[in-house]
């Protein structure tokens, strides 16, 4: 069956546009073909900075024939019956005919959803695919996702078309014949072009295999994965010449593969003296502006070399390497200048200049934010009982955490915030924990990144994030849908991850309350109802915690723990004490993993406890305290004894939280046989009110133990 080949030739497309555009094309063309009744094989979208290409195998030569039933208005509305019994079409009936180009003879009646309606068959013979495809492709093109679109020439006035960059040519072939597809100011033909410099001539092609051969001859590697692999292999080989390997940098690789139609990596070198600067600064200089790959030795130390991926096969590789090295040297000199001048003054001297930097218009400057972070971090530190010397470090970390934002290097490379703070703090002789804390208060820097290792960075990082969340929610800018300009969701997730990982036992609500009061002390957010703000912030945090808990369970091999997380979050303590919630999730999920079917019956049994009590309470039967003297049956006495045994044991001391909660879960598991026997032998809702109340009281005592761990009604019983 024929193959479809479509190529959009463009002026150099933005690297970040290409992958999403191709992903879209693959899906959209597939769907459009199906919707057009054109059975087809695999849809492949590939591209380079100068072309987006779609190749579809085995497209049917004709559309499938269409026969569908069109239903119209109710028969009673479509027909009017004359006095003589003849029926004529009403305006509604005529309208249905006209709209669908039918004649009255086509009509019949059929039972619709709301009674009898008029209907007709619409038959449409399939058209040749070649006739359908141009409009189909033209329909898909304007929908290609484009963050920023542009017009060119007289485009806006003449053809109302915009795209990521100007379109230069279109190639559309179906079964070897050219299709006439119009997009922007171009009509498609049967020619393509190779590399901009190496093969600029137009080349006529009549098949996909010819097209691929033309690209190969034309120094174009269409496949993105192949370009990526070429860069990796060639660049790594070059890096070996410089006594190292490539510094792994997947995001950079993703960009660079879309900067060239075919990669021609070249090794460049720079002077050893630059290695005195922080590695992160050098790497930023190389990657951000120049898109060069850094070279590291086995120990991860930078080598004085880089790899630039050229886009054409320069006959003068040495000159090219030297030219790129010269650009890099000038950048390093600039960086060295900032690095030197930054260190002429201590990091702390930057603090007054934070008064000039606005955090958010309604929430004040970074100096004010720093004050709040200091207060909140200290408060949290005291809540978890940090010793005085550690508190001093926390306070100092908080005071300095934003100071590097006014340094020259961070001004030039915002992504080095924290890293330069750490470097400068060390240079100033600040305590090591403070230097590390400054860097780590930004951790985790992105999803999946590492968490703070030290207490200082952890506490200050939590305070910084809570302050942002409270503030932004306070000014009514909660994230909506995919719009989260202040990255509040990420901040909340980061907070939860740190609190749990560090096993910080404090009340989330208390922390939020303090964060709100820190704003109010500064006469900010004073028009907002503080109670409502505290509630909405806790609610917002709660919404992010669930995902964190599920992920943490999954990371321990306990997948599918969503219901257990919900059950644990609905326990008595709610989500206020995050490490405890996490420990209970782990204990229960592990119990389920260990016990399998037995856990299901355990959950069912405990669910039953909750259900009986709920029904009783609905009837206004408040369970009284249990009077053991009133219990008559062996089964209920046995349960009473087992329960008091668990209660009497109390919380063991000297074991960690995880162990504590694991034992708690095991205790509950051990109670189950007694509970099952109780339900087998005893009717809770006994006729004797005193007996009934005693039994309800017993169950309430049991529930009291259960809700300490989880709300078992939320556990899924299906395996």
């Amino acid at each position, binding site marked *: 069956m024929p193959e479809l080949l479509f190529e959009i030739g463009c*002026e*150099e*497309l*933005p*690297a*970040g546009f290409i992958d999403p555009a191709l992903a879209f094309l693959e899906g959209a063309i597939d769907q459009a073909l199906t919707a057009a009744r054109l059975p087809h094989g695999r849809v492949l979208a590939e591209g380079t900075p100068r072309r987006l290409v779609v190749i579809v195998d085995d497209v049917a030569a004709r559309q499938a024939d269409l026969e569908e039933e069109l239903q119209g208005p109710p028969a009673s509305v479509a027909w009017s019956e004359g006095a003589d019994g003849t029926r004529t079409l009403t305006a509604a009936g005529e309208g249905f005919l006209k709209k669908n180009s039918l004649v009255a003879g086509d009509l019949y009646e059929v039972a619709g959803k709301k009674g009898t309606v008029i209907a007709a068959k619409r038959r449409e013979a399939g058209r040749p695919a070649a006739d359908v495809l141009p409009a189909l492709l033209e329909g898909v093109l304007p929908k290609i996702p484009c963050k*920023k679109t*542009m*017009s*060119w*020439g*007289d*485009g*806006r*006035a*003449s053809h109302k078309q915009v795209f990521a*960059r*100007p379109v*230069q040519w279109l190639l559309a072939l179906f079964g070897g014949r050219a299709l006439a597809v119009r997009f922007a*100011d171009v009509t498609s033909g049967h020619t393509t072009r*190779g590399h*901009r*410099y*190496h*093969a*600029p*001539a*137009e080349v006529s092609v009549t098949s996909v295999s010819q097209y691929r051969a033309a690209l190969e*001859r*034309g120094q174009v590697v269409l496949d993105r994965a192949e370009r990526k692999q070429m860069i990796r292999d060639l660049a790594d080989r070059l890096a070996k010449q410089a006594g190292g390997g490539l510094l792994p940098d997947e995001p950079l690789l993703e960009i660079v593969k879309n*900067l*060239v139609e075919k990669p*021609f990596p070249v090794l460049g070198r720079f002077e050893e003296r630059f290695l005195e600067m922080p590695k992160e600064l050098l790497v930023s200089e190389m990657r951000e*502006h*120049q*898109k*060069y790959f850094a070279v590291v030795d086995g120990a991860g130390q930078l080598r004085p070399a880089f790899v*630039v991926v*050229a*886009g*054409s*096969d*320069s*006959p*003068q590789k040495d*000159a*090219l390497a*030297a*030219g*790129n090295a*010269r*650009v*890099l040297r*000038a*950048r390093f*000199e600039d960086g060295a200048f900032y690095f030197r001048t930054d260190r002429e003054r201590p990091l702390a001297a930057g603090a007054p200049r934070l008064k*000039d*930097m*606005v955090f958010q218009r309604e929430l004040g*400057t970074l100096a004010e934010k720093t004050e709040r972070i200091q207060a909140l971090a200290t408060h949290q530190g005291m809540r978890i009982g940090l010793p005085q010397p550690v508190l001093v470090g926390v306070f100092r970390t908080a005071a300095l955490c934003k100071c590097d934002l006014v340094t020259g290097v961070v001004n030039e490379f915002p992504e080095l915030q924290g890293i330069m703070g750490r470097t400068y703090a060390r240079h100033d002789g600040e305590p090591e924990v403070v230097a590390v804390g400054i860097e780590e208060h930004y951790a985790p820097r992105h999803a999946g990144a590492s968490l703070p290792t030290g207490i200082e960075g952890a506490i200050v990082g939590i305070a910084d994030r809570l302050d942002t969340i409270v503030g932004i929610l306070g000014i009514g800018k909660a994230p909506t849908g995919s719009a989260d300009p202040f990255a509040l969701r990420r901040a909340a997730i980061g907070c939860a991850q740190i609190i749990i990982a560090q096993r910080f036992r404090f009340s989330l609500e208390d922390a939020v309350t303090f964060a709100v009061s820190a704003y109010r002390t500064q006469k900010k957010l004073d028009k907002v109802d503080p109670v409502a703000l505290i509630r909405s912030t806790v609610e917002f945090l709660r919404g992010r915690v669930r995902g964190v808990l599920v992920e943490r369970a999954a990371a321990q091999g306990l997948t599918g723990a969503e219901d257990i997380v919900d059950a644990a979050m609905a326990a008595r303590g709610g989500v206020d004490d995050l490490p405890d919630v996490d420990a209970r999730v782990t204990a229960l999920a592990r119990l389920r993993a260990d016990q399998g079917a037995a856990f299901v019956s355990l959950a069912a049994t405990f669910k039953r406890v909750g259900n009986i009590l709920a029904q009783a309470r609905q009837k206004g039967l408040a369970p009284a305290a249990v009077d053991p003297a009133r219990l008559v049956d062996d089964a209920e006495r046995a349960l009473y004894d087992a329960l008091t045994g668990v209660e009497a044991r109390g919380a063991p001391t000297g074991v960690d939280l995880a162990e504590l909660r694991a034992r708690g879960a095991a205790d509950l598991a051990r109670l189950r046989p007694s509970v099952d026997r109780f339900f087998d032998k005893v009717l809770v809702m006994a006729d004797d009110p005193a007996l009934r109340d005693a039994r309800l009281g017993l169950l309430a005592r049991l529930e009291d133990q259960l809700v300490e761990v989880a709300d078992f009604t939320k556990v899924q019983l299906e395996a």
Partner: protein
Amino acid sequence: MPAKKKQPAAKKRPASAAARRAPSKKPARANKKVATARTPAARAKAAPPSTRFSSSTAAPPATTFQEVILRLQRFWANKGCLIVQPTRTEVGAGTLNKHTFLRVLGPEPWSVAYVEPSSRPADGRYGENPNRLQHYYQFQVILKPSPKDIQEQYLDSLRELGIDPVAFDVRFVEDDWEHPALGAAGLGWEVWAQGMEVTQFTYFQQCGGLDLPRVSVELTYGLERLAMYLQNVENVYDLVWAQLPSGQKISYGDVHKQDELEWSHYNFKHADTGTLFAQFNQFEAEAKRLLDVAEPGALVLPAYEHALKCSHAFNVLQARGVVSQTERAGYIGRVRDLARGCAERYLASRAARGFPMLTGADRALFVEGSHA
């Protein structure tokens, strides 16, 4: 304020051996046709080995600063650009020259090329830094509407200077440009040669807060950088500006080093901030007043020049370090309001004159129902 990003450090390259060997002095205009008419194999045979793959060959390198300017002027004049002269007011970039800022508005065609001496007071380094200047030259080209083959035209202009795109890995790297103070935005690239940005290449989409019905393309060449590249010098002051018939060489330093020293002292230490703040306010008031003149209608061009003076006063104040981060946004907003006012009034003034430079077919496209 600066129209573009901070002028990155200038760099140079070794002279091109291939370029020196290249046979043709005039490769540019015929390139495309030659390229499309021949097979790659035929070209490979015909071309010298070092440029085997390239679609054309480069001219011998322009060896003086003024030669770079002369060749670019000649090249773009041949492409149909008017060669005009710089504005008489200080500007941070060629974009602020009325030949760009005002002329890109509206439907009238406009193609122009000029050198713009650009003032960036904060970038001065007392003549000591080999790459940074408080006064430097841009070569600015505006083509409206943007031609279909503008990338090829641009590459030919590099070849005309002696830069072979293959040998020097000339690439178009995404660079979306935005100038909030001018209400201007465009999409395009920074053009790299051997990893160095040599030109900003922008399709204007918006200017003065107005959408542009006809898109202009703006090419901004960094002249010092290109010349350092071509002359293989590390220090801008070592550039040969001209070689006189007597054989004497005049350097960039001979022409500008004293300026850089004196103006750096002025911009960083001696400029009277009280005067500058007062000037800012006066220029702003004057610009506003001129925009509101009723008879014979807004005096847009004088108003715009006063807006530029405001902008420059602000730039010097910035260099003096007396504008705080928080105040900065306020000043930029005031300049933006002036720029927008000028853009709107200018467009209205051209419309009132019936867009006199608009010709037949274009008139039908852009001014429907008008009496062409």
